[in-house]
C-alpha cells in the first residue's frame, strides 16, 4: 500500500486543503428511486415488503381465488347443491381422460357400470371403457337461482349428455361431492369473516379502553381477559352452541354460530391493542393532541389507530383460521350448522365413522380445502405480520 505521495516510515503527511467551495446547505442528491422510497406512505412500504415475501403472496392469491369462487358458486359447480342422483349412490371419483384408444379426443369420461355384489351387498362401480362421453364446457345444466335471486342454468362445466361427472364421487344420497364442496365454501369462508368482524370490534373497543385509560379499567379488563382465556375454546363453543334454540332457522343458526366464534376470540386482539396503545400514548404527538383539547375518541381513532392498524389486521388474519376450524369441528359434532346449510364441517359430518375411511374415503375430501385455506391464511398472516412494521 505505498504510492508516490505517501511519506515513508516515520515521515509526515503534508497539510491538505480542499479547493472546492464550501456549501453548508449541500445535501447528497437522492436518486429518483431513493426519493420514491423515502416519500412513500406507510401502506406503500408495507405493500413493497409484502411483495418480497413469496410464500405470503402465493397464499394471498390462493385466498383471493377461494373468496372469488364464493361469488360464483352456482356457475362453477357442475351440479345443483341438492340434486340427488339415486342411481349413483357412493360412486367413487370419476377420472377425466384425454386419449381414447390412441386417439386424442379432449377431456371425456367413461360411464359407470353399476353392479350390486350380492355376496357382501357392496355397490361396485366399474368404468365402461367402450363408451366415450366428452365433458361439456360453458353449457346449460341444472337450473339454479344465482344468490337466490336470478334464475339461471349456465355452468362452467357440465356432465356429458345423459352421462355423469362426479369428479370427487358422490355421497349417500348420490349428491356430487365437488358441487357440495364448492357451495360449502360459501358458508365456511364467511363464518370466519363475520366472526372476525365481531371480535375485531370488541377487541378494538375493549383493548382501546384498557390501553388508553389504564388504571382501574385496565386492571379489570386484564382480569376479564384472563378469565375468558382460561376457558378451553372448543368446550365453551360447544356449550354456547348447545344453547341456540332448536327452533331457529338454519340461517339464524349460522349467524348465531359466527357470533359465538367471535365472542370468545376477541381477547388476543384486545391484548394487542392494549399493549400498542400503552406504548403509543406516551409519545409526544399524543400529549400534543391532548393539550390542544382533542377528545379521547378522536385521539385514539385519528392519531393512535393508524400506528397499530397494520398489526391488528395481521393478527386478525391469524385468528380467522381458528374460527374456521372451530366451525368445522362444531358442525362435525352436530352442534354447529345443520343441513340444509352446507359447510365443509357439515360435509365432514358424514365422514364421522370409521367405515367411511375404509369404504368411501372420498367423503373425507372436504378436508383438503380446509387444510389449503388454513395454510393460506397462516402463511399470508405471517407475511402481513412481517410487513406490518415497514420502518424496522
Amino acid at each position, binding site marked *: 500500500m505505498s504510492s508516490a505521495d505517501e511519506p515513508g516510515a516515520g515521515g509526515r503527511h503534508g497539510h491538505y486543503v480542499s479547493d472546492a467551495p464550501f456549501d453548508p446547505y449541500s445535501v447528497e442528491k437522492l436518486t429518483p428511486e431513493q426519493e420514491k422510497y423515502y416519500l412513500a406512505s406507510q401502506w406503500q412500504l408495507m405493500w413493497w415488503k409484502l411483495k418480497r415475501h413469496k410464500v405470503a403472496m402465493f397464499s394471498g392469491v390462493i385466498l383471493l381465488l377461494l373468496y372469488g369462487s364464493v361469488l360464483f358458486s352456482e356457475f362453477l359447480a357442475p351440479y345443483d347443491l341438492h340434486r340427488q342422483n339415486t342411481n349413483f349412490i357412493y360412486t367413487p371419483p370419476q377420472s377425466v381422460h384425454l386419449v381414447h384408444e390412441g386417439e386424442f379426443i379432449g377431456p371425456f369420461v367413461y360411464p359407470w357400470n353399476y353392479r350390486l355384489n350380492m355376496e357382501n351387498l357392496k355397490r361396485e362401480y366399474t368404468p365402461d371403457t367402450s363408451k366415450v362421453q366428452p365433458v361439456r364446457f360453458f353449457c346449460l345444466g341444472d337450473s339454479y337461482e344465482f344468490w337466490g335471486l336470478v334464475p339461471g342454468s349456465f355452468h362452467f362445466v357440465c356432465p356429458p349428455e345423459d352421462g355423469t361427472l362426479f369428479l370427487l364421487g358422490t355421497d349417500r344420497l348420490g349428491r356430487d361431492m365437488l358441487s357440495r364442496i364448492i357451495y360449502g365454501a360459501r358458508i365456511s369462508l364467511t363464518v370466519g369473516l363475520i366472526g372476525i368482524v365481531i371480535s375485531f370490534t370488541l377487541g378494538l373497543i375493549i383493548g382501546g379502553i384498557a390501553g388508553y385509560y389504564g388504571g382501574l379499567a385496565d386492571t379489570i379488563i386484564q382480569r376479564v381477559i384472563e378469565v375468558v382465556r382460561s376457558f378451553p375454546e372448543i*368446550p365453551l363453543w360447544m356449550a354456547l352452541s348447545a344453547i341456540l334454540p332448536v327452533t331457529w332457522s338454519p340461517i339464524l343458526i349460522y349467524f348465531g354460530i359466527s357470533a359465538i366464534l367471535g365472542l370468545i376470540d376477541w381477547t388476543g386482539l384486545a391484548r394487542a391493542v392494549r399493549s400498542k396503545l400503552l406504548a403509543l400514548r406516551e409519545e409526544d404527538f399524543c400529549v400534543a393532541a391532548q393539550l390542544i383539547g382533542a377528545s379521547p375518541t378522536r385521539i385514539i381513532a385519528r392519531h393512535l389507530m393508524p400506528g397499530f392498524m397494520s398489526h391488528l389486521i395481521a393478527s386478525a388474519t391469524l385468528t380467522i383460521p381458528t374460527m374456521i376450524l372451530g366451525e368445522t369441528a362444531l358442525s362435525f359434532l352436530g352442534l354447529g350448522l345443520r343441513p340444509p346449510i352446507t359447510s365443509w364441517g357439515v360435509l365432514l359430518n358424514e365422514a364421522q365413522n370409521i367405515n367411511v375411511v375404509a369404504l368411501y374415503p372420498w367423503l373425507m375430501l372436504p378436508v383438503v380445502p380446509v387444510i389449503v385455506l388454513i395454510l393460506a391464511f397462516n402463511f399470508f398472516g405471517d407475511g402481513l405480520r412481517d410487513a406490518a412494521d415497514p420502518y424496522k
Partner: protein
Amino acid sequence: MLTYIVHRFFIMIPTLLAISLIIFVIIQLPPGDYFESYIAELQSQGESVDLEKIEALRRQYGFDRPVMEQYVYWVWGMLHGDFGYSFEFRLPVTEVVGDRLYLTALVSLMTIVFTWIISFPIGLYSAVRQYSWGDYTLTFLGFIGLATPNFLLALVLLYIANVFFGTSVGGLMDAQYIDQPWTWPKIVSVLEHIWIPVIVIGTSGTAGMIRRLRANLLDELEKQYVVTGRAKGLPPLKLLLKYPFRLSLNFFIADIGSLLPSIISGAAVVEIILSLPTTGPMLLGALRSQDMYLAGSFLMFLASLTVVGVLVSDLALAVLDPRIRLQGGTTR
C-alpha cells in the same frame, strides 16, 4: 418466594369464582330445564307423567328458588366436593364422573410431554439453521399439523391402528379391562391405546410451540453475549447449550399457559371421535340433554385444569428464574 406463592394463590380465587359464574349463566341460559325435556320425552313415548313427583324433584334440587340462590348453593356444594346430581344417570355427578377426570388429566399431561419432546429439537434446529431447507420443511410440516382438523386425523389413525396393529377400535383400553381394578395388563392396554389421542391432540399444539420457540431463540441468538462467546472462540454447540438453550427452557415452562387451553380444547373433540372414557364425550351428551349439573361440572373441571396448570407453570418458573420473584407480580 412465599409471598409470591401466596399472592399467586389469591389471584386464582377471584378467577375461579368468575369462571364458575360464567359457567352457571351458560348452563342456565337454555330455555326450560331438564325436567321439561324429560316430561316431553315421557309424553312422546306415551307414558303417564307423575307431575307431583317431578314437582317434588324440582323442589329437592332447588329449581324453585331464585337463580342467585341456586348459584350460591351450587358453588358451596362444589367447595365440599358435591358437584350436584346428574338427572340423566340418576346418580351424584361425582359417581358418574369417576375415573374420567383422571384420564382426561392423564391424556392432557402426556400430550404436553409429547409436544415438548417433538417441538423442542425441531424448534432448536429451526432457530440455529434459520432459512435452511430443513427449517422450511419442518415449519411447513408443523403448519400442516396445525391446519389438519384433529378429528379427521383421529379417524384416519384409528383406521391405520386397526388395520396394521390390530388395536381395538376406540376407547382407552381393551373392553375386558373396563371397570376393573388397575393391574399391569390394564396399564399396558391403556398405553397401547393412548398414543393415538396423544399424537392427534399433540399435532395442533406442536406447530405453535415450534414457532414460538424458534422466534424466542432467534431473539436470544442475536444478543451481545452470544457474539462475545463466539468471539472468544467457544465451540458453537457448547455456546448454544450453555446459554440460549437454558434461557429457552424457561420459556418452555412459561408457555404452558398458552399450550394447555389449546390441548384441552382440542382433546374434547378428539375424545368424542375416539369415544375415550374421558370428559369430552360425556360433556357433549350432557349438553345435548341439558343435564346441567353434569355439563357445568365438566366445564368447571376443564377450566380449573387450565387455571391450575398455569399456576403450576408460574410457580415452576419462579423457582427457575429469579428475576420473576423480584418483580413480585404475575408473569403473564
